[in-house]
């Protein structure tokens, strides 16, 4: 296990390098690059200002030199200042991460709370009304765009019924119950869509397990059906489900941009989105890099957990 973990960590190095090159190359690919944006915010577009700024930001050096310099600073979490707010980018991003983690975690928990019972029940009572309901609902969940679902929820629960606020955010550490009010709709939108995938997976892996021989043995030994399902099959069937939920969580951390902007949720996805609208390129660069790293590391953790849960998988 240790050797495998170390090897997986070593494998991260090229992946992270590709990520940094892509993110660095992104700013290089912009026309006129940072200099034009800088001059736009500083004012005074003349050759002298250009030269001074170019020197200050090291833009007169060749590409590979700038990349190396940028990489060294980046590793130390020094991303420079935002072009719009003039505050350090690392601070801007750090203040945004908790909201995204909060939303994504609750969304996934909600999805598991829907998907695991529904998927299990659908598998146990195969071809019953519950099974068809589960299948149709999950097909709908996969096909309905989450932004549309979110809008429909806002329409129903905020505008018509007036039960919940349509958008906004309160930190759970300041006012826990208050923050739940704002959390319910976006988390439900996430939960519904992710549950669609997880339900299907739970159902098929549960069916897989139920057809195995050890289930017959357990039944032959006279164990109750409840015990067979909850003690033996469900545990095995949960392994893929938990893995997928972990991967979904990793992807959500990098992909709640749409919901965050609908619900005015001050997460990191919205920070990047706003930066795109304001052409705050250093912030986009740092934001994408940080999210990319989070996703890569999360994927590794999920993979390792999967191997811990399921020792039958060889450490290849």
């Amino acid at each position: 296990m240790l050797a495998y973990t170390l090897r997986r960590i070593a494998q991260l190095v090229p992946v992270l390098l590709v990520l940094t090159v892509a993110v660095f190359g992104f700013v290089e690919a912009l026309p006129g690059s940072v200099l034009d944006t800088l001059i736009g915010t500083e004012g005074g577009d003349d050759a002298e200002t250009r030269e001074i700024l170019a020197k200050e930001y090291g833009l007169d050096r060749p590409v590979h030199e700038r990349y190396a310099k940028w990489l060294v600073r980046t590793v130390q979490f020094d991303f420079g200042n935002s072009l719009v707010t003039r505050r350090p980018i690392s601070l801007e991003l750090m203040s945004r991460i908790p909201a995204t983690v909060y939303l994504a975690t609750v969304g996934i928990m909600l999805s598991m709370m829907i998907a695991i019972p529904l998927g299990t029940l659908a598998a146990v009572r195969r071809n019953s009304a519950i099974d068809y309901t589960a299948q149709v609902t999950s097909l709908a969940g996969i096909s309905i765009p989450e932004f549309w679902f979110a809008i429909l929820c806002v329409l129903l629960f905020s505008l018509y019924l007036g039960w919940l606020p349509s958008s906004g955010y309160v930190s759970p550490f300041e006012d826990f119950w208050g923050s739940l009010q704002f959390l319910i709709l976006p988390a439900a939108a996430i939960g519904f869509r992710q549950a669609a995938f997880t339900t299907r997976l739970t159902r098929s892996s549960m069916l897989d397990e139920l057809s195995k021989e050890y289930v017959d043995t357990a039944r032959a030994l006279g164990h109750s059906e409840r015990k067979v399902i909850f003690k033996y099959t469900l545990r095995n069937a949960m392994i893929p489900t938990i893995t997928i939920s972990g991967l979904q969580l990793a992807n959500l951390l990098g992909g709640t941009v749409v919901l965050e902007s609908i619900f005015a949720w001050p997460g990191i996805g919205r920070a990047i989105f706003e930066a795109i609208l304001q052409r705050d390129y250093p912030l986009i660069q740092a934001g994408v890099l940080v999210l990319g790293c989070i996703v890569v590391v999360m994927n590794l953790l999920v993979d390792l957990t999967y191997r811990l849960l399921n020792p039958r998988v060889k450490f290849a």
Partner: protein
Amino acid sequence: MSELEADKLVDAAIVWRAPPAPPRSRRFATALSNAWHELRKSRTASIGAVMLVLLFGACIGTPWLATHDPIKQNYRERLQPPSEKHLLGTDRLGRDIYSRLLYGGRRLVTIAVVAVALSLVVGVPFGVLTGYFGGLADTIGMRIVDGLLAFPGLLLYLLFVTVAQAWKLEGVMTDLVLVSALALAGMPEKARLARGSVLAEKQKEYVEASRAVGDSSVSIALSQILPNIISPLIVTSTVRLGLVILIVAALSFLGLGTPPPTPDWGSDLSAARDYMETHPLIAAFPGLAICYTVLAFNLFGDGLRDILDPRLAER
């Protein structure tokens, strides 16, 4: 190799070269009727197929089906309910929603199809060749694929779209940038799948047979193995098409797609949000259109998987 084995190989080679092909037109007709016959085995697949035929029909027939110019504004007829003149009513600028849906769908489906096709064209030969040759090519190839897979999809599109905006690209060029980002993101999945199937196929007798009759490696990999691994590729591509449509719609919903007034389901939906309380129908139609399209691809893909992989269908 024993004599018996050698005989078997020769036999296999003969069988493999065997029947003379019927003319192309008849082969196509037979293939089509065979396909329909197979499709009817799965109800989901046939429903999906019918929905897709309608969808593609609407996309191809858009210029004839549309009743109005999709970008022509008419302030006297804004926010109208569905009527005989405007089948699905009009939006905030008095544009005909039905015609906008048709033109928007045509664009969206084209983008998705081209993107997925491109990811197949790049990804499949990549996976087949790395898988077939193995060794160093395989190691390097798969590292590249891993790196791409690790990149969170949406962020990749955001980067591409930002660059496109910064270059002030317009019209078809923005679409091309988006298509290449989508293709790049879809490529690793196809390459992996192709590689895995090739590793399994490589061991089989017919491959050895074609090598025995002296075909070159590349030709074996592309002309012998590829046709045999095509079914999982078709299934994943169909499902991927649905996903790509969701992504493109989400990007234009955020305002990062084609700028107005181009008809676009995502941005039309976003614009309709301001009138949601008073005219909920305007937001309903583009949303329903997206659902229909994605559902069609998902149903068809699911059904196909059941047909092509009977082992899974038993579940």
